[in-house]
């Protein structure tokens, strides 16, 4: 539990301590919220009650795991290109520590999608959701920068270059995630 507070409040130290179990737990939980909790919530709480498809759930869960490895590989290749000496297994063990905001986003997406009619055209609910979504986006970006500094050990110009190129790759992978049915990108 202490480690989760560290991930939440002191990400710099969490990246140094490198607790891979906590990292993978966050990733697994994000994927399951996306692929199992979302469809179940829509089934029980949504206006149309779509029956979940087990085959679809298994497929998207597997693709979610692949998406995590894909982003780790992209981070490794691009950071290596910018002079980082960090090996691939370190990326796999630590990138999951940036998944706190992604996890919250997957929960928010599940609710906003199921109860869409409540939030649509409602300025108060809409404003609250806007605070959540934009806050999560900024939080993830901060963690991304700290990650590049602490784990990939890139500085100033090299870090800025890696930030932009990985950022473009994240947009591409996020679109691909959306295409295969992962509404919150597992990135």
């Amino acid at each position, binding site marked *: 539990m202490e480690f989760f507070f560290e991930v939440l409040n002191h990400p710099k130290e969490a990246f140094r301590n490198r607790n891979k179990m906590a990292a993978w737990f966050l990733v697994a939980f994000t994927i399951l919220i996306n692929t199992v909790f*979302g469809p179940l919530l829509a089934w029980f709480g949504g206006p149309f009650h779509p029956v979940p498809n087990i085959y679809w759930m298994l497929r998207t869960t597997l693709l979610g795991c692949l998406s995590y490895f894909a982003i780790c590989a992209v981070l490794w290749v691009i950071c290596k290109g910018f002079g980082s000496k960090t090996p691939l297994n370190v990326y796999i063990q630590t990138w999951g520590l940036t998944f706190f905001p992604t996890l919250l986003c997957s929960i928010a*997406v599940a609710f906003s999608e199921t109860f869409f009619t409540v939030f*649509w055209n409602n*300025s108060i609910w*809409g*404003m609250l959701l806007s605070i959540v979504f*934009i*806050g999560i986006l900024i939080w993830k970006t901060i963690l991304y920068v700290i990650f590049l500094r602490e784990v990939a050990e890139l500085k100033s110009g090299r870090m800025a270059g890696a930030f932009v190129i990985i950022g473009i790759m994240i947009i591409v992978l996020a679109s691909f995630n959306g295409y295969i049915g992962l509404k919150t990108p597992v990135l």
Partner: protein
Amino acid sequence: MKKDKKTYIILENDALPTKQQKEKMLAHILSEYHVYKASPAERLFKMITVYPWRFAFCFSTVQAVLFTMIWGTGYTNLILRVFGG
């Protein structure tokens, strides 16, 4: 026995730093010592990296309140369409 003690004292004295060495050490310490003052950029970076969610949600609240006041549901619906699944 007395001779041994004398030899020991000589060896011990030899092991101690000389006056010159002491001065060099002091000069080295003085040259290394300076009051560390973080620049405003460093202080801002530290403030953001410790409790990153605090900065993120503060900033997000300001933008959400401001833009909802300007564009109303047009803005909130846009956010919902982009991020809301």
